């Protein structure tokens, strides 16, 4: 090294760190806005519903490498309509279905979103029997997979509308790389770590709370069978994202259309819309194509 080389001038990259409710965020951008401003009041309310100050307990990790562009996973969790078409377990047991009471909420810039839904009557509505994934005769040999016990925190501070039903599932997408999952008693974070344009690592952190009973911990672990790389539900998503990426690469000049529910962007009181995907795409273009 030359004599004037000063190691203090060549340190590690310092990250901007924020903590809230036991969750730690880090950003490479030293000028990123404060965490609470970045989420905005609407999405922060849904964040606080899940992370309300209780001590978190890590149950474990799952990792998968999905051969698709990272935005496809954001789109997946911003597309409330596909679960009722694709995921047999969701549609058959009523966990997530287009006719469930639901709300879609975004921050002011439409980059983050919360999909809020309340479990409906499982396997009864005549409308869903036309869906190929609906299995009218499906009965579990071991029903403990869906042994659901409501929890007090589900109503949450975000549910300010007293007429709104208590959510049983809230899926929150934080742009660009984090997904917060509550699907009945299974709670997790999912972290998107891009590995180039056509691949990303998807890291699941399943957790519970320090005041969980042993029975609730076991329930969270059992319901985790629906999610992750082998999940009865989530395995479908990784595979379909791979198919989508293959299609994009084979026809780069082609375009995808996301016009379910119109062409505009805004909160809704139902889930039959792609408005959240349009919102993210619009924000993405504002940032990436700015003059």
């Amino acid at each position, binding site marked *: 090294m030359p004599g004037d080389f000063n190691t203090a001038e060549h340190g590690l990259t310092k990250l901007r760190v924020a903590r809230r409710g036991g969750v730690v965020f880090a950003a490479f951008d030293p000028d990123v806005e404060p965490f609470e401003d970045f989420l905005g009041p609407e999405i922060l309310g849904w964040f606080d519903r899940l992370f309300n100050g209780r001590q978190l307990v890590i149950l474990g990790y799952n990792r998968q*490498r999905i051969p698709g562009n990272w935005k496809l996973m954001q789109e997946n969790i911003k597309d409330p309509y596909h679960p009722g078409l694709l995921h047999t377990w969701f549609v058959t047991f009523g966990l997530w279905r287009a006719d469930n009471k639901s709300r879609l909420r975004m921050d002011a810039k439409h980059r983050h979103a919360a999909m809020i839904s309340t479990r409906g009557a499982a396997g009864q509505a005549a409308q869903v029997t036309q869906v190929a994934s609906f299995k009218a005769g499906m009965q579990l040999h*071991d029903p403990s997979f869906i042994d659901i016990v409501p929890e007090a925190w589900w109503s949450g501070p975000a549910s300010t509308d007293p007429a709104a039903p208590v959510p049983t599932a809230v899926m929150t997408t934080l742009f660009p790389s984090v997904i917060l999952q509550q699907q009945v008693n299974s709670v997790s974070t999912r972290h998107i770590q891009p590995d180039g344009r056509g691949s990303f690592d998807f890291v699941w952190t399943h957790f519970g709370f320090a005041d969980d009973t042993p029975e609730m*911990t076991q329930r969270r672990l059992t319901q*985790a069978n629906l999610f992750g*790389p082998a999940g*009865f539900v989530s*395995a479908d998503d990784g595979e379909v994202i791979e198919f989508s990426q293959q299609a994009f690469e084979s026809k780069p000049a082609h375009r995808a259309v996301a016009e379910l529910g119109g062409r505009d962007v805004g909160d809704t009181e139902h889930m039959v819309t792609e408005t959240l995907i349009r919102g993210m795409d619009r924000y993405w273009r504002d940032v990436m194509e700015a003059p």
Partner: protein
Amino acid sequence: MTIDFPDWLAITQLYADYASTVDAGRWADWCEFFTEDCVYRLQPRENHERSFPLATPAFTSKGMLQDRAYGIQETLFHDPYCQRHVVGIPVLREASDDRWRCEANYAVFRTKLSHTSTVFNVGRSFDTIVRTPAGLKFAVREIIDDSEMIPNSIIDPIRLPS
């Protein structure tokens, strides 16, 4: 530790039959390798070593295995592939007249149509085998995979996503 040859033959045959059955995709038969109150878990090595309870699938009854078998055949949506298990000779850790504890290394190779074969998953299993009126069965299969980064999804019993 001693073991009669017929029991040793039955144990090694159990492992070989198991691999043959899952490679052939005979899912109803796969469930019959287990006792009614069996435990079948496939756990990333990190969770195992750090004592985190989460497994990738975690089944605690034969009924759950039957539900998985139904999922593999009827509900899970995935790219088709074939899978080949290579299982090492089991190491016998404990032996009694009707209960054995074994460990075995495994490698699973996956081949998709028009693609080269790849190593899909490698690891080891910690097994408890019991004698029943219907022959030897797995009471416990704790599979710890070194391959924590799953290539997209797992459908089959390690061939979880089929």
